[in-house]
Each structure stands twice: as C-alpha cells, then as structure tokens.
C-alpha cells in the first residue's frame, strides 16, 4: 500500500522536488507565517540576530554533516566546544592577567592557536578508536563527551572563565557597517568617541560573525562538493566495502573526518568566547550535538550514510532557529521549540522514507 503510494508520488516530479526540499519550503512558509504573527519579525535586525545566534548551531551541524555522511555520529562536539571555549578563556585570562607586555591581541591569538591544536585531539582519539579498533562511533564519541566535559569542568572548576579582554566581545558582536539615520556612516566600529550606550541609535549591518561563518561554510562546502576528500566521504558512507575496493584508505579518511568534526567544534568554542566574552563549559541540558544531528537530518541527510549536504544542514539549522525566534516573537512559550523539533524530525524521516533516492 505504502509502496504503491510512494511510487505514484515519485512519478510526479514536481511533487518529488517539493518533497525533497521540504525543509526549504517549510522555512519559507514559517517566514511568511511569522511575518504576520510576530511584530518586528520581518526586519533586518531580527534576521541578523537570528543568524548571529545560529552561528554555533551552524558550525556544529556542518561538523556533524561530514560525520553523518560517513554513516557515523559524533556525540562529543557539544562538549569539545565547551572544552575549547573554557581552555581558550583560561589561556587568554592567564596571559592577559600576567601583563608584562603581552597585549590583549597577542594573548588572544596565542589562546586561539593553542586551542585549535588541542581541539584536534578528541577527534584524533575517537577517529582512531572508530577506524582502527572498530569501536562503534556512538560509544567512542560518547566516551570523548565524558572525557572532554570532565576536563573542561576541571579547568574552569565549574565556573565560567571571566575577566577577559573587553576587545573580544567588541569583535565577536561587532558589525561592519554602522549608520546613524541622518548622521552619516562608519565602518568596523562606532565613530570615535561614541560610547556603547548610544549603540541603539545606529543601524548596524553585517555582523563580523557572518563573515566568519560564511568563510568557513564556503571552505567546507567546497571540501565536500568539489574535492576528492568530499567524494571519498560520500563513497565511504554509501558503501564502505566498495570504497575499500576502490582503493580509498577508509581508515585514514575516517580519522580525518572525526578530526575535522572536532576541529570545527573547537572553532565554535572560540567563537563562543568572542560572542560572550567568557569561557563557557557546556551544560548537560544543552544538547548541541543532538540538535546538530536533527538539523542535519532535517536537511536531508540519512543516518545510514551517503547522503547530506552542507547547504541542507544550514537550512535545517535555520528552520529550527527561525521557528524558535518566530514563536518567541509571536508570544508563544519557548519550550514549544523542543516539541517542534521533535515533530520536524519525524516529518523529515517519514519524507525520507517516501522518497528514498535523490534525483
């Protein structure tokens, strides 16, 4: 019965196109709906805010995209992010407080470099466990979840790492263009001598975070779509044995994938420091990794591997982000977002069942 139904639906190419891109159409539908129900929803400021707040989710989801395409899963990214955020915070704090000619800029740069190198380690460990020792990805990355979370909490002793240079948030929450209505335009920061208290008088355009995440997405998109690295990733997820026979070094590639995922989570942690101005550990209820997996699946990937795209995952993140924002602006209690994500996931997999093959 379902079989014939799916066959008839598949016969209809227009319908199939809509169904396969349902997330994008849902996103469009929500945007239109919330423009009517929420006052101030349809505004540059609001859209910029949603995008700015979604940066971490976007990074997480693109990390998870690579892993899920190889039919794995990475549960550690949320806590790798916390680890990276806390460690970066701690290093910057120590160097900054030490004084002695170390300017904030240099201490931040040293912090970033060290943390980016450190953030490769969790991925390396879980990658080797998965590829070489055949530990299920779920367990290996869950183990790394515990380990990175414990280390992060030990470093910060259970409190966020504060008293960091103020320049962090100025960069992290800065915009490229500031326009004062009827008063002129300035680039990269508020005009000289204008304090943060009058920031609301300015129209702010294009947050730095957009440039940051845009560049990373471009690189990742290119990596997945146009390079042999990307080809191999899809090949392993589609059929691991065939990939081995085709001469792909599957083990090495899997290690690389988990290192990449962990590295992106590390980047997210550094962004988190810039955004909040403190080093944050990841609380248990945050579920960054689970929301990332949801976004990736909503974006058309399959947990069985071989399917998925950076673009789709970003659509998935925005679907969740705009849903949350729109509900909030429309005056609906924010907890509905959990329910909404749950329902969206079910829709995603049911559609995936009805339309098994990509065109």
């Amino acid at each position, binding site marked *: 019965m379902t079989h014939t139904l799916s066959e008839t639906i598949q016969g209809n190419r227009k319908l199939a196109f809509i169904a396969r891109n349902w997330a994008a159409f849902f996103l469009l539908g929500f945007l239109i709906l919330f423009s009517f129900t929420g006052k101030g929803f349809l505004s540059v400021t609001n859209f910029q805010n949603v995008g700015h707040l979604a940066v971490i989710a976007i990074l997480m989801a693109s990390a998870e995209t690579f892993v899920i395409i190889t039919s794995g*899963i990475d549960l550690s990214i949320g806590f790798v992010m916390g680890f990276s955020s806390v460690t970066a915070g701690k290093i910057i704090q120590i160097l900054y407080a030490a004084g002695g000619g170390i300017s904030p800029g240099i201490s931040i740069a040293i912090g970033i470099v060290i943390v980016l190198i450190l953030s490769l380690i969790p991925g390396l460990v879980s990658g080797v*466990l998965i590829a070489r*020792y*055949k*530990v*299920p990805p*779920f*367990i*290996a990355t*869950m*183990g*790394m*979840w*515990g*380990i990175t*979370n*414990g*280390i992060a*909490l*030990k470093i910060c*002793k*259970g409190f966020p790492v504060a008293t960091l240079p103020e320049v962090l948030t100025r960069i992290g929450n800065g915009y490229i263009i500031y326009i004062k209505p009827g008063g002129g335009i300035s680039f990269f920061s508020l005009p000289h001598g204008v304090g943060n208290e009058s920031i609301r008088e300015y129209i702010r355009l294009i947050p730095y975070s957009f440039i940051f995440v845009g560049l990373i997405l471009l690189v990742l998109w290119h990596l997945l779509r146009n390079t042999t690295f990307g080809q191999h990733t899809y090949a392993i997820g589609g059929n691991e044995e065939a990939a081995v026979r085709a001469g792909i070094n599957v083990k090495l590639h899997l290690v690389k994938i988990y290192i990449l995922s962990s590295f992106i989570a590390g980047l997210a942690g550094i962004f988190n420091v810039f955004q909040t101005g403190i080093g944050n550990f990841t609380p*248990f*209820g945050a579920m960054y990794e*689970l929301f990332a*997996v*949801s976004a990736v*699946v909503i974006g058309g990937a399959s*947990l*069985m591997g071989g399917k998925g795209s950076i673009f789709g995952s970003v659509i998935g993140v925005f679907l969740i982000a705009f849903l949350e924002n729109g509900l909030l602006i429309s005056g609906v*209690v924010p*907890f*509905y*977002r*959990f*329910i*909404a*994500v*749950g*329902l969206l*996931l*079910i829709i*995603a*997999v*049911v559609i995936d*069942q009805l339309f098994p093959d990509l065109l």
Partner: protein
Amino acid sequence: MNTITKRKLTNVIMDLGRSWALIFLIVELVFFSLAAKGFLSLRVFQMVFFFGVTVFLLGVAELFVIITGGIDLSVGYIVGFASIISSRFVALFLQTGMSTLPALLLGIFLTLAIGLLPGLVSGLLIAKLRVPPFIATFSMLGITHGVSELLILNGAVNMPKLSTLFGNGYFLYWAPGPGLSLFVRPEIPRGGFILELIPNIVVVAFVVIGILSFMLKRTVFGQYTYAIGGNVDAAIRSGINVSRHTVKIYMLSSFLASLTGIIYVMMYVKGKGDAGASNLLDSIAAVVIGGASLYGGKGTVWRTILGALIIAILETGLRVMGIPTFDKYIIVGIILISAVLIDKIFPDKTYMDTKE
C-alpha cells in the same frame, strides 16, 4: 609447558578477561576503602544504592533496547516528564478531597500508564516507519521535554509528605528497645542508636529489576529480544512478530523511565523537567560496561547492574575522598571506551570453547 596446560592457562586468562568488570569493581572497592577515609561504612554503601537507583533502572531500560540493536535517548527526559505529571495528578486528586494514600496510588498508576505513550510512539516510528531509533527517540525526548517544561511553567507541585517519607525511608529499622520494625521508623530519643537497613526505593527497584531479569532470561519475551538483536531476518523467518516486539521493548523502556521519575519525585518532593537528563551517559555506559554490544544480541540484567555499580561506587568514592565529581566524567568516559576494547580482546565463549 605442554599444550594442554597452555590451553588451560589461556582459558583461565580468557575467563578472567571476560569478567574484567567484576574484577574492576573489586579493585575499585579495595582502592576506595584504603584511600577514602570513612568509605567502608554501612551509610556509604546505602548511599551508593540509594543514589544509584536511577542508573540501575535506566540502565536496565536501555539494556532491553540495546539488546535489540536500538538506542533510547529519551529515557532521561521521560524521567522528568513522569516526575512532573505524577505530582500533578496527586495534587489534583488531593484537591478533589481524596485521602492521601489512594490519591498517591491512583496518581502513580496513571503516570505509569501515560508513561507508556512516548515508548509506544517511538516504537511505532521505529518498527512501522523504519525511523532510526536515534532519531525517533530524540524526537520523543524533545516532545516530552517540551511538554514537561510547559507543565511546570507556573512552578512545580509538591508531593504529599507520605510519599516523601516512603521515598527517603527504609525497609527495615532496628533500635535497642523497640526492636525490629518494617517501614515505620520507631520512636527513639534524639541521638539514640538506630540501625536503618535498605532504603525503600532500593527494594522497589530491585524487585522490578529481578522481574525483568527473569523476563529476559527465562521467558519467550526475553528469547525474542535476543533473537531480534542477533539477527532480525532470522527472527522474522522463525515467525516472531518483530515490529510488535520492538514496540513492546520501547514501551518497556519508557515504562521503566517513568517508574524512575516517580521514584525521583518521592526522593526529592518536587518534579523537575531535566531530572534524569544527566544520567543518559551513565546508563548507556552501565550497559556497555556490562558487556552488551550496541550491535545487539548481547547483554544481561545483572551485568548491567554491575556496570551501574561501578559508576555509582566511583562517584560516591570520589565524593567521600573530597575530589570534585568532574573527574567522574573523565573516568566514566575512559571506562566506557576501554569496555569495548577489552570485550574485543576477550570475545564471548563460542560453541567451540564450550565444547572443550
């Protein structure tokens, strides 16, 4: 050395390797007894079991699911969901003028009934619509989490005193003078000696766990569970209604999680949305340390309890030593990964091994 003794020696080593979890538990106990002052006492062991109940029950819930080759991410938030709706129900019945005990029993009964729903839905999604268990149970996690947070928007409701007395009470009391008494704490002068044995909730948990162990080991239900995890195709061909059994498994898991929620609210008076959220890692770790495989077909209830005990003793031991529990996460993570690696070095007995 001749070949026979050599083979015997390898067999002994293999057997030791297979029971590494038990050996680890003993080492852990010896270590904490020596290193942590005051660890070796009745009070501490009661605390191990008292606070371990959540992971025991959730671990067993997860075990049934994992044996079938699935995973249930929702158990943690079903605990919270059940803790909230049970206190709601009880408060509602008390308002209608019902006396405490029937209100409590009816509330618990209704909660357990409603607690089957998340499992029913995710089970149906997994069995009928072929949704991956990870996704289906995560969507249930979202829905139960959302609903429970909505229910306590205006604050959580207190459970009546009777339930808290039960939740924090003991099964057996002994005091010089009044002697032995069940459930009811004898009246003794302040500071007088009283022996409190076995917390009530531990008794409840182990009765349930005992029944489940029996079910898994000795009944058709258990046989089917292993059969599905071992080889789905073979299970279907041998006439097992796999999709129906899968639904039952997720309902069982959801049921156990809501039972845990009820126990939680009896311990802590108020319900909380994320009551069991942080126990997901521990409960899956307990199952894996207990020798189950995420690919299904393996695992027993008592070994899962052994795994949960390793974690519970670790946590309590570190607390007694005064080390922040942050270390616990690191150690559990390492044990979790090592468990899989050790199980690979010492694979289960095969038919050939048993013949020798």
